[in-house]
């Protein structure tokens, strides 16, 4: 799972896609996932971080993660493999 190249990601939770000119906003959890994806981390590594840091069970996280990735795809922010 790779983010589209050249996305500008700000620390305050915004993404700018220069290829479309669209901007997006993220909540705290969304921003962490996007930053990890940018660093090239995989789902397992991201999950481990959340299970360690947040009061959340594995199933709920996986379910939320899937939904979030589907939205990244919906907005065309994931590179086609």
């Amino acid at each position: 799972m790779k983010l589209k190249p050249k996305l500008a990601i700000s620390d305050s939770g915004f993404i700018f896609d220069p290829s479309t000119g669209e901007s997006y906003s993220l909540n705290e959890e969304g921003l962490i996932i996007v930053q990890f994806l940018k660093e090239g981390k995989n789902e397992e590594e991201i999950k481990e971080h959340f299970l360690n840091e947040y009061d959340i069970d594995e199933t709920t996280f996986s379910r939320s993660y899937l939904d979030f990735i589907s939205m990244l795809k919906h907005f065309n922010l994931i590179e086609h493999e």
Partner: protein
Amino acid sequence: MEKKTFERPVIKKVQIGMPSKFGLKSEYAPIKEIDGIPVKNLIEQYGSPLYVISEQTIRETYTEAYKAFSTRYPKVQFAWSYKTNYLDAVCKIFHQEGSWAEVVSGFEYEKALNNGVPGNKIIFNGPYKTREDLIKAIENNSFIHIDHYDEYYLLIDLAEELNIRPKVAVRINMDTGIYPQWSRFGFNYENGEAWEIIQRILISNKLDLVGLHCHIGTYIMVPWAYANAMYKLIDLFLGVEKKYNKHLQYIDIGGGFASKNTLKGAYLPGTDTCPTFDQYADAITSVIINSSISIEHLPVLILETGRALIDDAGYLLGTIHATKRLPDGKNSLITDLGVNLLFTSFWYDHKITPAQEFGPYTEETVVYGPLCMNIDVIREYVQLPPLKKGDHFVISRIGAYNMTQWMQFITYRPNVVLIDTNKNTHIIRKAETINNFNNLEQTPEHLKKIE
């Protein structure tokens, strides 16, 4: 180290330009408790979904309404509108406060009697009163509000048969300057029908005409409509005084006061647009006080307002059963309560508030109920924090009509709990079980075996 609270990760597109007038965030703080009782505890103890009624709010609202009218007019009588919420405990709170009963069917009439309301404190409205209903009402000396000529002639027959002179009032419909004009209840003022039936009653002398009644509509947001209605009722009242030298006992202005709920498609929230009791009272009582009715013959002013007295006292608690992403990217929630329990969601954009802490981020959300039918939508569009499976939420202002118009469709109706003024909780209507339905059904002998 304490772990952080998890909120579903969310991304949304930044829309350039003016924000949507209808889609702004509305929830800023969770509702974690009702009258001091944690929502979580209520759901743990009584299940989800759950209706909760605050006795304190009912009493406070009634006091506010009564004060608004009684400080402006010397003879005020409220009559609790049973159809708005006829759970016995709710009715009895209003009766303890001094309300009479206003009923619109034989079923409601029986409920009022069972609640201990004396017959002479029951107002019988509605277009459908059977012969049996009317006999009971006449024998109990109740106030019968005549809706049509067939009812009038039936009452004449019954008066002779029972040798009792029934106490009646005439229901009157009229143009009060608002749309829609309700014309189906009673007799019309403008075309002279109302004056004609009044004269028939007075000339025949078989019925005891004691009052005039109107019910101009529902969710009336302009108090002056009531003032217009009152001008017309007073015209008839004075006509009776002048021509027949008879002083009617009361004028019943009906119900229809708005509540703070927001109607679908409304530009501003109901909390901003709903008139106060003082505004309604001012409009209605000023017309009577300033009329030429003499002080000693001022009629009792009867009010049948239901929605405005009970809506704020009712809450519906629910739980998120699942979240689901729709093809257009919009988030949707499947909850355990639908239009079966929240009939008023057909005309209100109900306020839905999470019952636990949430962050500042919101997303466009559709809120569905549990029913397997497409129209089961509680909110078609609302900005909500990213709720997840198992989260609880509170729907406020649901006290009116939902506990009478609810549907038993594919599932059971849940517990209804009352929080009393000492913060004790009581089940006032038990959750239904399969036995409730089995007890009513009978299977013919030849259908008992399916082998």
